[in-house]
């Protein structure tokens, strides 16, 4: 069943610099029990997409399109219904656990808060017990419920966020850069935990990261975003190992495979600056930094189409690159 579906989603911020199209026509689907990875560099609209799901965007954001959660359009929902859907239908693990937790409340209380809010008739004591159980689920001793966030390490805090996200048994969990700020070893712990939960509980997971290699480990499928649009989508491993969009390729190259002589002493990178969302170039937004651009790229915006040469099994490989669509290699 389709758990979450974005249909031609556009998000535009109105700021001091004018109108910023942060998300430009995204169509994505997440099935129950499956994991979707969203990759892309800073500012490409990943968080905006995530926040749009629960309508947490600031007032300055104008959202068009549809976001269907279990078939219900979140964007047209009444506030009462929306509040009910929040955290029960979908929950979010935010990037900066330090800031996403209230520094002056004990973590037990924070984990219990949504339970008390959404479950009628539950007593505070029961909620507290549930919170402790949840903390144990994510590998924290239940005594930690009495700690304040600052008494925990970054990894532990991130686990608290995960416990909190699980509190109301949501169908969908969105993890926005859940591991970015973490140390390698802690990141590994958290990733292990998340993938364990997905297989165990069959929830849908949207995992956002700029690290393609991480996504390739955890996700079934990966969508790579650039300047507010999805530029490539496909099975996680393949996108990482065999990119069909020059941007995905560059992103993948930023995380070399150790032991692979091809990447030894050959740091992969992308020249030029990230795009300014206010002044996107005509045609393909990636063209100014693209090594394989052809003339057509400056004129037409490439659509997200299936690309040839992909393996037959699994979801279709799609890419928004004229070159790739013609079956040419996109890596220089």
């Amino acid at each position, binding site marked *: 069943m389709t758990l979450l579906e974005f249909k031609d989603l556009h998000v535009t911020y109105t700021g001091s610099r004018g109108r910023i199209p942060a998300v430009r026509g995204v169509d994505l689907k997440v099935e129950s029990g499956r994991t979707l990875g969203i990759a892309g*560099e*800073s500012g490409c609209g990943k968080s905006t997409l995530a926040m749009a799901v629960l309508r947490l965007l600031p007032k300055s954001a104008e959202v068009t399109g549809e976001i269907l959660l279990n078939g219900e359009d979140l964007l047209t929902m009444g506030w009462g219904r929306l509040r009910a859907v929040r955290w029960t239908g979908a929950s979010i693990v935010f990037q900066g656990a330090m800031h996403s937790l209230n520094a002056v409340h004990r973590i037990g209380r924070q984990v219990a808060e949504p339970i008390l809010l959404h479950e009628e008739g539950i007593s505070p004591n029961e909620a507290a017990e549930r919170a402790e159980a949840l903390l144990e689920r994510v590998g924290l001793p239940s005594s930690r419920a009495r700690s304040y966030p600052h008494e925990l*390490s970054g*990894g*532990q805090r991130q686990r608290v966020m995960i416990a909190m996200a699980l509190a109301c048994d949501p169908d969908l969990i969105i993890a926005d850069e859940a591991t970015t700020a973490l*140390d*390698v*070893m*802690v*990141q*590994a*712990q958290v*990733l*292990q935990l998340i993938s364990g939960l997905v297989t165990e509980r069959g929830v849908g997971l949207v995992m956002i990261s*700029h*690290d*393609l*290699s*991480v996504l*390739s*480990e955890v996700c079934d499928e990966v969508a790579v975003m650039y300047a507010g649009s999805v530029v490539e989508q496909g099975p996680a*491993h393949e996108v*990482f*190992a065999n990119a069909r969009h020059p*941007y995905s390729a*560059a*992103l993948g*190259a*930023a*995380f*070399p*495979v*150790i*032991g*692979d002589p091809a*990447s*030894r*002493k*050959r*740091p*992969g*990178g*992308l*020249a*030029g*600056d*990230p795009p300014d969302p206010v002044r996107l170039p005509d045609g393909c937004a990636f063209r*100014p*930094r693209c*090594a394989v651009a052809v003339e057509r790229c400056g004129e037409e915006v490439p659509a997200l189409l299936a690309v040839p040469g992909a393996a037959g099994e699994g979801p279709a490989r799609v890419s928004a690159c004229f070159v790739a669509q013609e079956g040419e290699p996109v890596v220089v």
Partner: protein
Amino acid sequence: MSSEARSSNEEPSSGSAPSSAAPVRGEKSLTARDLRVEFGLPGGRVARAVDGVDLDVAPGEIVALAGESGCGKTTLARTLLGLERSTGGTVAFGGEPLRYSTKALKAYRRQVQLVLQDPSGALNPRHTVYDAVAEGLRIHGITDDEPGRVADALSRAGLRPPEQFFLAYPHELSGGQRQRVVIAGALVLRPSILIADEPVASLDASVRGEILALLLRLKEEQGLGALVITHDLGLAWSIADRIAIMYLGRIVEQGPVEQVLTAPRHPYTRALVSVLPGAPALKEAVPEPIVLAGELPDASRIPGGCRFRPRCQEVAAGRAAEVLHRCESEDLEILGPESAPHLVACHLDRARREDARDGGARMAV
């Protein structure tokens, strides 16, 4: 602009053979011997942030220093530059021990330069690119042909044409450009060693490569030596000649990148390598990801004996039973860089090696 950027992308490929420029040990190399740095903490405790480190960086080689957060990498870098006083051991440059007088430090810092993690922070927002790059010249009283030197440094750092950047303020540049400015600021004094503390950690994934390529090129073309501090082993793989793995203030494994990363011998290194996502080449060496239990180690509570023992997966799995008494009581000697190319500070490893030498070919790794 795109043309110059592309050229930087192409160049490394021409000299991609491993360690093409041979490091020039000796005259201009930076050496640390038994370096120790302690911090007094409230409550009378002492954090041994750097606890006995021997390290050499020579012009023409890139040494990577990797390790978990809080293991003392930054402290080591700061101490090498004389920004932090060591509480034991020596830092020497070209054989001369570092003296801490203002004058001596100033002279020393012409030779050894620092590049920080966060380029946005490392540039004073009120100074133009020109000022930022010229600052070193002004501090050292080099007045002749300032604009020329600045322009030269900028173009060597890949910002071409340099004059176009003179008037820019940091906030008008992209992250990668800012880091280039910082590097240019270091290059303008024509140092022989560059110490880079997490030089790309704050940069966008796709931009990182550019900076790394620049470092590599500076090494190749100008014989610059660099100590690159990182927690990302992939980065080491991308540019470094040698790598040192640090754990709790001490280097636990050190050697050429290919050897250390593809055939790690210290349990800690093995764990680090094992959790790297998507590294098929390693799957044979370390088949299952080893996720270490326990939290970050605390520099103020360094356990006796082998400092990695409490988290050691070998100990936990009981595979180290034979040497456990040594792990518990015997401190490991400091790894000196000169003795062998690949060094490991582990009792178990040592025992196995000895076994291997004694009892034939029973190599575990």
